[in-house]
């Protein structure tokens, strides 16, 4: 923890402690960071991927199991060329009031497509990667899902990964 946490202006303070008290061991705590991987190209040459815990997935694909007691440790691929109206959200654990009106508030696929089209970023990976947060076993997540997605991201040719919790 940094000293800044006491001055945090987050809308819902004490989230980590609240959830961890209710579901002991469910929240991730790391005492050390991982070494930073270097950025090797300017942004306008970088292929960007997007990883999201939003539960966004193409309509017609197997829905995430949002009610499994310990969580769903699978992921879906979302074509980066998809239209927002081709996608659904299967996740219960965050407010989707904004996303139901404009998916870009949690899954900014249209903004990323625009940034690629105008050349601000070098391009997008063919697929983005999604899963659902609120998995109750962080060690299992780290051992399985995180490695599965990391391998897929690595194979995708991404130069930068934008990752968004929900």
């Amino acid at each position, binding site marked *: 923890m940094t000293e800044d946490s006491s001055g*945090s202006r987050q809308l819902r303070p004490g989230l980590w402690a609240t959830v961890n008290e209710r579901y002991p061991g469910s929240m991730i705590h*790391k005492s050390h960071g991982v070494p930073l991987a270097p950025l090797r190209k300017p942004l306008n040459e970088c292929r960007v991927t997007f990883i999201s815990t939003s539960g966004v997935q193409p309509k017609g694909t197997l829905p995430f199991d949002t009610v499994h007691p310990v969580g769903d440790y699978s992921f879906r691929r979302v074509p980066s060329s998809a239209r927002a109206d081709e996608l659904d959200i299967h996740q219960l654990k965050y407010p989707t009031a904004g996303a139901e009106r404009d998916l870009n508030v949690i899954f*900014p696929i249209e*903004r990323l497509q625009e940034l690629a089209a105008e050349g601000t970023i070098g391009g997008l990976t063919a697929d983005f990667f999604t899963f659902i947060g609120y998995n109750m076993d962080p060690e299992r997540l780290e051992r399985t899902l995180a490695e599965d*997605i*990391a391998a897929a991201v*690595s194979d995708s040719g991404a130069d930068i990964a*934008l*990752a968004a919790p929900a």
Partner: protein
Amino acid sequence: MQRAVERRGIPTVSPSVARDVTEHARPPRAVFLPFMMGHHFGVPFHRELQRRIILECLGFVAEARESGEIRDLPITWAEARKEGVAMERSLLSPVPRAPEG
């Protein structure tokens, strides 16, 4: 998740609306916004804000110096909502006509 990707040599960054959760999880780089959960890229129809948050995150990849660093963006949720409502109204209202003659 970010840590697993970063270990494969790909730099990562995330927007966060829960600074305490991010401080505990220590992702390699994060950008904090005091926004509502589920609204990490802002509010509906506010394209400029959504775009800005993406670019602030991507820009931070080159600028962060220490693993676990969190950048705070000076945007409030109240401002974002106010701007979003104004933008939505302008999208819904008819285009003003130029005066004739």
